[in-house]
């Protein structure tokens, strides 16, 4: 196997591929490698973990076809230390030779275990609505859980029904919901995509900006995303996503509109005094103002009042400031709207005038003072 590529291209691709490498935990050793396959006039590099596999096609000059497995970390370190310009790769017995302008490295390669192959056949692939994916990435992804023991919550649900497409994610404490008109062609009606796969996909879209198609494989157990230079294949989460429809409040007793930035600043300030008391900040909503309060015995107390336009009952409720902040930070609209059915009812957050989106956060029960 012999080929030549530009360092700038390769390092960019290798960095992206690194995100697909296995994280902590025990995995077959072979997955800690990049798998190079040069064949049919293409240079393919693959990296993957037990859940997702990413293959990128690199532009370059091929002199001889072949395959090799290279320890990823070592290769990455070598590449990032090379100057820009042509890099020459050659597979030799037990090693990969990398020549650049001044240096020549030999990375010992492994033999033995074969790199797992999963052939995606791209059958039935349809174009992806990348705009929707990006929007879901911004507004929904952060609500998914990191807790591996409840696998269904670590995914983002994509659902298509009656001409609409939806993305939903929750960790059991808060939930994001996004629904838009479905611009994609036929395909799946419901998939639960692992959070990490979606994040990786968004990174790819960001870097490549190419058109993407998607296809379900292996009896709906896997999904494949394809573009001219990329193939991302991932397992889908097989567990059932909880029925989120049940928890969406139908009515509210209090509705208030405030400046997003002012609210964010008030919550940040409240956070300073909330860390000690399980991150709790209190919200007091009155006719024309919203007050953010927090206090802790050791650190002190703070109270910030911001202008608000309120409909309905006066309300006192409390939230974990992290959830409030994550929502507020995820948007840059001017105004946010908060609806509540009561101090202990799930709070609904939206931005003003936005259709098809809401964010729900479960309030925290306050101890009676």
């Amino acid at each position, binding site marked *: 196997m012999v080929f030549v590529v530009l360092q700038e291209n390769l390092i960019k691709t290798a960095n992206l591929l690194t995100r697909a490498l296995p994280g902590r935990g025990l995995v077959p050793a072979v997955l800690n490698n990049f798998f190079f396959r040069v064949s049919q006039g293409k240079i393919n590099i693959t990296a993957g973990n037990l859940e997702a596999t990413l293959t990128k096609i690199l532009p370059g000059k091929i002199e001889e076809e072949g395959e090799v497995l290279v320890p990823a970390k070592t290769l990455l370190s070598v590449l990032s230390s090379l100057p820009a310009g042509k890099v020459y790769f050659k597979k030799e017995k037990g090693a990969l030779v990398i020549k650049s302008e001044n240096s020549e490295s030999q990375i010992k390669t492994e033999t033995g275990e074969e790199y797992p192959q999963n052939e995606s056949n791209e059958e039935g692939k349809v174009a992806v609505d990348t705009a929707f994916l990006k929007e879901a990435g911004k507004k929904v992804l952060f609500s998914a859980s990191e807790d591996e023991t409840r696998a269904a*919550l670590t995914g983002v649900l994509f659902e298509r029904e009656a001409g609409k497409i939806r993305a939903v994610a929750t960790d059991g404490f808060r939930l994001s919901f996004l629904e838009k008109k479905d611009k994609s062609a036929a395909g799946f009606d419901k998939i639960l995509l692992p959070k990490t796969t979606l994040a990786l996909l968004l990174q790819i879209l960001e870097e490549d900006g190419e058109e993407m198609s998607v296809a379900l494989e292996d009896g709906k157990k896997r999904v494949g995303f394809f573009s001219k230079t990329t193939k991302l294949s991932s397992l889908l989460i097989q*567990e059932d996503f*909880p029925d989120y429809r049940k928890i969406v409040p*139908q009515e509210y007793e209090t509705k208030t509109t405030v400046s997003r930035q002012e609210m964010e600043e008030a919550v940040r300030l409240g956070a300073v005094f909330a860390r000690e008391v399980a991150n709790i900040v209190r919200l007091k909503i009155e006719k024309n103002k919203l007050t953010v309060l927090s206090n802790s015995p050791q650190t002190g107390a703070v109270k910030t009042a911001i202008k608000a336009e309120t409909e309905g009952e006066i309300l006192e409720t409390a939230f974990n400031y992290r959830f409030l902040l994550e929502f507020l930070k995820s948007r840059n609209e001017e105004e946010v709207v908060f609806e509540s059915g009561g101090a202990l009812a799930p709070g609904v957050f939206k931005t003003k005038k936005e259709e098809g989106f809401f964010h729900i956060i479960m309030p925290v029960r306050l101890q009676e003072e």
Partner: protein
Amino acid sequence: MDVDSLWTSILGEIELETSRASFASFFHGTRIARLENNLVEISCPNQASAIMLGSRFRPLLLSLLKTRLGKEPLFRFVVEPKKISPDKAGPLFASSQADFEKAFQKTGLNPNYTLENFAVSESNQMAHAAAQAVAKTPGKAYNPLFLWGSVGVGKTHLMQALGREALLKTPHLKLIYCTGEEFTNGIIEAIRNRSTAEFKKAYRTAKFLLVDDIQFIAGRESVQMEFFHTFNSIVQAGGQVVLTSDKPPKEIDKLEARLRSRFEGGLTIDISPQNFELRTAILLIKASARGINLPIETAKLLAASFEDVRALEGAFLRFLTEKGKGEDDDRAVARVVSQNSLLLQQKKLAQPERVLEIFASHFSLSPQVFLGDRRKREIVRPRQLLMYVLRQEMGLSYQEIGLFLGGRDHTTVLHGVEKITSLLPKNPTLRDDLSVLRRVLWG
């Protein structure tokens, strides 16, 4: 050796061969899902661990299984997805579960009636499908949904399960379940106590109204009028009404025309009595709900002998009692079948001679043949069936039956009854004969 101990012993050996960390992370949550013929399915909590086990431990597992099973099995890994129970999914979902339970209790619905434990067959699948559709989108599919059928076919079960399903989807739904009788008594009380305004408010603002045995309101003018207005209020506000009755709208006597036309304006579906297979399925469901492992053959035996589902349930309970005395299944069933006391009272009044005549006419044989000696199958079967009916439905003693049938020995009769009991589950023609005969005999 059962599968769990088999797996535990295999895991024990594997633990000796691998590091503690590996063992814990790979084998946690695994078990043998299936062990049949030569196929072993090992269930893993998620796909990733299935892949890992496959790549690392296949040869070891294969050899361990081979030692224990005596030959090398075909084995594979399966992933068994778990449903997260709502209260474990997080506070967002737990509170909705609590909301559901509170709301459910207020409705007075029976939690034992669910769509999951409602056995479906041709006789009720349309009704079942309609119930599911209505539960899914109340007020939008059919209004009203009118389910009718004779006693014991499952109307109340389906209706209550429907209500439960709708409430599960929307815990805050304003749902009212009542019987026709309760509605009638309610309005009468309200008139007496001058609390009609509250009564009207309670019912007319419901978003989902279920009324069981609506035929009860027929013949009562003020009740029907009240129901008419209630019905209109609810439907106009986009709500859903579900009704059950023992007859279709056009056959309910003394039902006001405008109510009749309202009822007919929705979807009217009949539910037919359960056939043998369905009764068997129902019995299995009821047994499993009690944690009892009822063998299919025994369930079939009971279901074949009892056409009425309530009688079948009673028979099942008597069967359990007999089993409790240490009887084996077949003996217990035989006892229960011959004790069919529920119907004995009415049927004792019938004359064996009349029964004989009806049998003779049904099988196109002369009555003499039944009493005679001939042993041909075409004669023996009907004769045995006659013994079965005389015993099971009329409660005559074996001796009495023997005497009546030309001086036969009581053991012959006993054998005949047992023979029929065991044949019924396997022989649809025989079941049909019995069914027809029963209808002719007792209507």
